[in-house]
């Protein structure tokens, strides 16, 4: 029997890897993939607590998170395609139309 704390530590490690990926990479597709990784680590948290408390609500919420991740991937990749056909790049630091 693995303690719930171990799952939480694993989940926080995966979340941090995702954060580092979002902040360091230039390629917008890899940034989207890192976001998927972060969403998945949250799922692991929800399911670990669902198992710990013997309450199925956590699993239902994990399914909702997967739904939102699918919607986010579809729209995000649509934006990437539109961007590539207009600006011929997928690097985030070359997309500076707003000059913020």
């Amino acid at each position: 029997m693995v303690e719930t704390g171990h799952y939480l530590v694993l989940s926080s490690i995966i979340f941090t890897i995702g954060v580092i990926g979002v902040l360091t990479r230039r390629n917008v597709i890899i940034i989207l993939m890192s976001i998927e990784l972060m969403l998945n680590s949250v799922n692991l948290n929800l399911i670990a607590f669902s198992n710990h408390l013997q309450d199925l609500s956590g699993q239902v919420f994990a399914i909702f998170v997967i739904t939102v991740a699918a919607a986010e991937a579809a729209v995000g990749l649509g934006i990437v395609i539109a961007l590539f056909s207009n600006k011929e790049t997928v690097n985030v630091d070359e997309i500076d139309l707003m000059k913020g």
Partner: protein
Amino acid sequence: METILFYILAGILVTFSILTVTAHNPVRSAVSLISALLAMAGIFFLLEAEFVGAVQVLVYVGGIMVLFLFVIMLVNVREMETQRRTSRQWRTAVVLGVVLSCELIFFVVRGTDIFSTEAVGPNLIVEAHTRNTESVGSLLYSTYLLPFEIASILLLVAMVGAVVLTLKER
């Protein structure tokens, strides 16, 4: 047995997550992410969440990652491989990431004593023989009916949005 399996899966998961973030080639990155997601599905099976594990494999690996691979093929991969892969802020980002990791693990370790070991909550799994998929399904269609419908509307809106975004204007 469960412990050994957990550590094997956790090792695979962490390794492939790091490979996803560090790989030069986006295709390699996507394949690493697929492996990481499969290991995550294995951990869900360990946690007795069979339905979510199956959904993870079907939706993430079968749907989302195939979509990612299609988009990687549509944009220019050869060019991406030769370019610099990190943005200028990577040193700050790594420091921030390490700090975040330390904070999270600190709070988890501190909080472990506070977790109640007793089963609480309205949707208890009392009978051990109840099937996971069946229980999740009945919960989804009774208590969480409204969020379920909202999720379906969200998917519809996302689909229309993706079509409109990629449509060529003429």
